[in-house]
């Protein structure tokens, strides 16, 4: 029996895929609450509504996702276009003609940004990240980077540390060669489908794309740095990671990360709200959330002043 449903919402950047004439893609990967579907050079994610929105997501009710996802296998054919997504093997389809669009680019231009307040929040987030226990990833490097804590030497930290410093320093100086070198050292580095280095780059690129004009001490936009990071990283990492980095370079980020960014314009005494938003980011994945937060902190510090 065919199941035909309406999705809850979908992200604005993937709208063109659904406007297009129907095309055939394939199931790329399947998880408990997510499946990724690949089309040519892009990749969209079907999510259960238990998860936060992503810049490439279509969200389904959890009851639907729970029934659909166990039946999917990588390589299955998927037909998308004309506001419809069909998975023939599962007799499953849904329509998006009346489905609301979600905007993954936080509306940062509608707010007044105060550099000193953001700097205070950034320091708080640095401390917050440093005291959390992390399941691997690069977030433990926040202490050695900013709080003069000793570096726990591992092959991963040894490879990442100089490139994290270089990334921040080169961004401050707008040194594109340095950005490229740091990105080459971080893209695809570490475990996971979105390797830790990519998550850091994603957080960093999003800051450059969204807030560099408002927050950099020299008031110069660094959007081009975000684009450069995505361009250099994409061929060097997984497909999903490369695509999420492209979104980040345009300021298109996950729901919880976007909310955290917007809390930075709150007065300093509202730090509790900032930390709650940061907690939501940390809850994402094994280390993706904390790595993204590290990238964000690195980006914000790189806009303040030159990092030693």
């Amino acid at each position, binding site marked *: 029996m065919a199941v035909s449903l309406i999705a809850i919402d979908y992200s604005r950047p993937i709208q063109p895929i659904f406007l297009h004439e129907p095309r055939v893609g394939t199931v790329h990967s399947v998880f408990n609450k997510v499946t*990724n579907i690949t089309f040519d050079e892009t990749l969209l994610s079907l999510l259960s509504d238990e998860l936060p929105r992503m810049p490439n997501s279509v969200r389904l009710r959890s009851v639907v996702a729970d029934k659909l996802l166990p039946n999917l296998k990588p390589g299955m054919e998927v037909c998308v276009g004309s506001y419809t997504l069909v998975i023939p093997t599962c007799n499953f389809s849904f329509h998006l003609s009346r489905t609301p669009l979600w905007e993954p680019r936080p509306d940062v231009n509608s707010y007044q940004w105060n550099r000193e307040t953001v700097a205070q929040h950034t320091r708080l987030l640095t401390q917050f990240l440093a005291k959390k226990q992390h399941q691997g990833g690069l977030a433990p490097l926040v202490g050695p980077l900013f709080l003069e804590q000793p570096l726990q030497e591992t*092959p991963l930290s040894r490879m990442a540390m100089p490139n994290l410093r270089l990334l921040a320093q080169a961004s401050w100086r707008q040194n594109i060669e340095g950005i490229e070198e740091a990105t080459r050292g971080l*893209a695809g580095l570490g*475990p996971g489908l979105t390797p830790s280095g990519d998550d850091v780059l994603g957080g960093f690129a999003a800051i450059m794309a969204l807030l560099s004009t408002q927050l950099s001490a020299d008031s110069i936009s660094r959007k081009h740095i975000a684009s450069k990071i995505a361009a250099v990283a994409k061929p060097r990492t997984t497909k999903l990671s490369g695509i999420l980095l492209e979104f980040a370079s345009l300021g298109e980020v996950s729901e919880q990360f976007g909310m955290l960014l917007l809390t930075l314009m709150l007065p300093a005494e509202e730090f509790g709200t900032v930390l709650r938003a940061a*907690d*939501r980011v940390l809850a994402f994945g094994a280390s993706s959330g904390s790595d993204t937060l590290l990238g964000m902190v690195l980006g914000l510090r790189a806009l303040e002043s030159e990092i030693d």
Partner: protein
Amino acid sequence: MVIRALLKPNTYYDSITLMSVAQAAKDLSGVEDIGAVMATEVNLELLLNANLMPAAFLAEQQAPPGSEDLLIVVRAIDDAHAEAALAVAEERLTSRGDRGTPSRGETLPARSLEMALKRDEAANLAVISVAGEHAWLEAEQALRYGMHVFLFSDNVPVEQEKRLKALAISKGLLLMGPDCGTAIINGIGLGFSNVVSRGSIGIVGASGTGMQQIICLIAAAGMGISQAIGTGGRDLSEAIGGVMMRRGLELLANDEQTEVIVLVSKPPAERVAREILAATQIMKPVVVVFLGVDPERFASVSGNTHMARTLTEGAELAVSLAGGDRRRVPGKDALNRYDLPKEHTKLASSQRFIRALYSGGTLCDEAMLLLNEQLGPIASNIPLRPEWALAPGETFRGHTALDLGSDEFTRGRPHPMIDPTISLQYLASAADDPQTAVILLDIVLGFCAQQNPASVYSPAIVQAREKARFAGRSLPVIISLCGTEGDPQRLSIQRTALEAAGAMVYESNEIAARAATLLVSDALHQA
């Protein structure tokens, strides 16, 4: 050493899965290290740096692996172990039918307050035990979520404590802590807590082991506890002003189940003590134990409040006021349980001093106060007077009482209530010292405490006494045993085992201290 690898093209698992699979394989014997990564260029470099590069394996591949391929590499002592580890990794991956996230029904620990709240929206109390000076951040977050907080962590700056308590009060919430060792809320024990039945006596305490002692003595008299609210040890300081003790008192005053209220604290600030005593002038009977404070000093403000000098006296008063039989509290009558005069006669002339080894700070304080009354100065790391402080490197000096649970002893190691290693070391040192007349030590039972303390203390006591005997000395060991029959360790079992090792066991810390005093005092000798 060999390196073996497994390549799974176009295969995707998330980090949680890969880490758990890698850990399972790494735990196998003969496995030195394992890597499970997408085969990106930098990850191959990472494997090289980690001495995990499977060069021969990669050379055999028709095409080099790429960023969409999962590469699992094992370094092991030999081929057999490496292959076994890869087999385990592959089996673990393929058995996870959901491809990469925890299987249905499997629950990962909540890694944030928010995640925990999502799992149980009705939760209204957060237990916070994170290391370091940033515990206040978590506490503030929980309070802002509208949750009461049990803050086990210490090292919270006093100004943060003051701010957090003001926030809690403004929201009608409790902030129990920081450095709050125990509480019993609606029958649920938090931190180091003892198993007691529910009853009509409510306690608010700025002292962890002080509360535990009173609770256990009340339980021994067959009575129960309505609520036990911790406030943190600094609550009655001038800086904090006793805000949480007053809040706890107010809650218990309005609690239908609570008929008698006990307040307990180490010496409070004068102004705060007066304010607290003024607040105790309510309809319900209130017993106050401010250790080290002469009740006469506050006679003008204590009104109807019952002031007790010791924890045992506080428990006796509470039991009596709640309609129980105070004689059932194992107090002064227990002093005759052992033949102390006989023990005294066995001491050699060199044996003149008490060596008290405590894991509970308040119990140590109480013992020092009692010993000092009869014996004069008591050297300590938490001295009653500054001039009685032990010098750096000094272990014992005359009568000595050590709080082995204080920071200088617990830095980088578990609290002695959890791991008694440090207590055993000092027990051996005290036993070796020919000037030691009696060793007085506390053992605290209950949740979070050592699972079977008698199993480690008994052999140590036997050995210490045996060693002293060979040196021509008798060595009495007195134990202040704080616990209940319902505790996981069971009071009677612990008592029996410790007595079998030759120790004298008292459930009242006051009586244990008085027994030790008697053993070294001339009064007993003359008697």
